[in-house]
């Protein structure tokens, strides 16, 4: 605990010295009487003040919530010795706003007294925030001495990206070995009827196709398509972002990635993640609730780290970037290094979908409306149209998401396009 004499002492000292000086100069004893209360207050400094003894405990109503959610922070202060005035500055993560109450409190406590103070904070941006640090300042009776310290007791609060329910998802071309929701071309156990063939020893009676058997005079069985899952790899561009938090292109990309991960995991697919930026992180494909937590862990920490270095996707282990996986690249296409990586993946034969988070709308929302700004945005839109056209000429399915339109609207076009591609193939 750091103690110090406050600037208020200097103020009192100045007044006392001025009053005494005027008293001497004017030879009026009343001016000494004027200085008396100030001198008496200053005289309390002569007494060695004991170090204030108190304890602080805090709790938060929830340690995980979605973006835009609110959490109540409750701080309990217990004084073991009398405290004339205690100032507490509660944690307030950057970008958050106090909804109810104040995040700063001032109170007076008698010995053995306990008091509680709480406030509600709204956290609009994803991330892992620490609500465990409280700055404390204790003042003595006249505010002449203060003791300051910080109570640090890590209390992480995880703010998850907002997830939207998605019904139209890009379908993978290749299915994997485990059971899932996709109808595989391979025949075996399943629900979807595929072909019929002659009965063979070992076939079960329930597989017999009675209609075909009666018509053809021999026993025939129905073969069915297997239902298989797929490997999905979400590749998030963290090389560059535009817009104002919490609505930057990266924030929107993270929300899209979280929504896609939730939807694919719900279909029993294995989902992996590559955060492609200044610092590369990846999560190997997996399924289930635990996998969602692993993916969100990386998404929560996703941020733009500036670098001149072009990252090579060859560094990513094959078990993460599985050749038969569907790769969904989520990008604002602001950095040519990501475009190059995407083209590289396409050239290597990956099943690839590019989900472009339009930076034009995001920038327009962040800027004040002006004719010059509107013109710049229109020119930028034309330029981007050329870039997207170039990607499409390489045979890549490019989906453009223009927030605030729903993500589903961008994904619907993918479904139509990929069905057509599959039938053509």
């Amino acid at each position, binding site marked *: 605990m*750091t*103690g*110090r*004499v406050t600037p*208020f*002492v200097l*103020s*009192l*000292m*100045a*007044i*006392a*010295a*001025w*009053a*005494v*000086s*005027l*008293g*001497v100069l*004017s*030879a*009026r*004893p*009343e*001016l*000494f*009487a*004027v200085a*008396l*209360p*100030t*001198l*008496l*207050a*200053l*005289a309390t*400094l*002569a007494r*060695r*003040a004991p*170090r204030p003894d108190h304890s602080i405990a805090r709790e938060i109503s929830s340690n995980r919530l979605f973006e835009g959610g609110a959490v109540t922070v409750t701080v309990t202060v217990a004084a073991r010795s009398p405290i*004339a*005035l205690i*100032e507490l500055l509660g944690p307030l993560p950057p970008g958050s706003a106090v909804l109810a*109450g*104040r995040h*700063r*409190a*001032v*109170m*007076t*406590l008698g010995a053995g007294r306990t*008091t509680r*103070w709480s406030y509600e904070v709204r956290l609009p941006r994803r991330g892992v925030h620490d609500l465990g640090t409280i700055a404390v300042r204790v003042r003595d009776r*006249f*505010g002449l*001495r*203060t*003791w300051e310290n910080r109570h640090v007791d890590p209390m992480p609060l995880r703010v998850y990206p907002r997830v939207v329910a998605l019904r139209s998802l890009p379908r993978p071309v290749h299915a994997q070995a485990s059971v899932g929701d996709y109808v595989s071309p391979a025949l075996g156990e399943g629900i979807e009827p595929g072909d019929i063939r002659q009965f063979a020893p070992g076939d079960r009676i329930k597989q017999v196709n009675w209609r075909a058997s009666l018509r053809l005079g021999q026993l025939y069985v129905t073969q069915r398509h297997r239902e298989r899952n797929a490997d999905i790899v979400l590749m998030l561009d963290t090389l560059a972002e535009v817009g104002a938090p919490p609505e930057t292109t990266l924030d929107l990309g993270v929300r899209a990635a979280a929504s896609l991960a939730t939807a694919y995991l719900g279909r029993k697919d294995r989902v992996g993640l590559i955060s492609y930026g200044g610092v590369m992180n990846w999560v190997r494909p997996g399924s289930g609730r635990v996998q969602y937590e692993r993916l969100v862990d990386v998404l929560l920490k996703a941020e733009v780290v500036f670098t001149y270095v072009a990252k090579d996707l060859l560094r990513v282990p094959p078990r993460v970037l599985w050749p038969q996986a569907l790769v969904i690249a989520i990008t604002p296409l602001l950095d040519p290094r990501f475009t190059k990586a995407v083209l590289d993946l396409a050239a290597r034969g990956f099943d690839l979908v590019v989900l472009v988070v339009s930076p034009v709308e995001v920038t327009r929302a962040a800027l004040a409306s002006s004719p010059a700004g509107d013109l710049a945005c229109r020119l930028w839109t034309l330029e981007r149209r050329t870039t997207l056209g170039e990607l499409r000429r390489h045979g890549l399915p490019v989906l453009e998401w223009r927030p605030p339109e729903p993500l589903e609207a961008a994904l619907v076009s993918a479904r139509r396009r990929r069905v057509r591609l599959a039938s053509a193939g």
Partner: protein
Amino acid sequence: MRLLAAGSAVALFVLLRLTTPAPAVAVGGLVGLLLAAVAIAAHWRWLATAAGCVFLTGYAAALWVESAPVNIVPALGFGLALFFLLESLDLACCVRGAAIDGGVVQSALRRWIVLGAGAFVAAMLAMALATLFATALPAGASPLLAAAGALGSVWVLAVMIRRAHTGAERT
């Protein structure tokens, strides 16, 4: 808290006007009042100190103009009002934008009452002692003694503050 500070500033001005009706002193009081108002509105502690110095100068001028017999009680009131102005503004700065426990204001008021009573008792004691020693001291030496006393008290204060600062750092 800001209301208390404003009340103290008004009390200072009224005491100044009661001491002397001289227009020059009233102008000084108005300047002090204006400075105090700005300090209270803007939460500037240094300006409140400046306002206090202006009020003090005005009060000294008023006493000098009037040359009335020594009366300690209004002077003590003036000193208390000055202290309340500075402390309430300091408290107002401290509680600004914070959730305030009801006990804070009560505790401050209790403290001020105790300080007022203590200052009154101390002033009475000082006056009694001064009356006692006034006859014994030579008249020519009194300005020198007063100056030495003032210097000594300021020096003692400085030593106390220094000790308090190092003591607080140790804790």
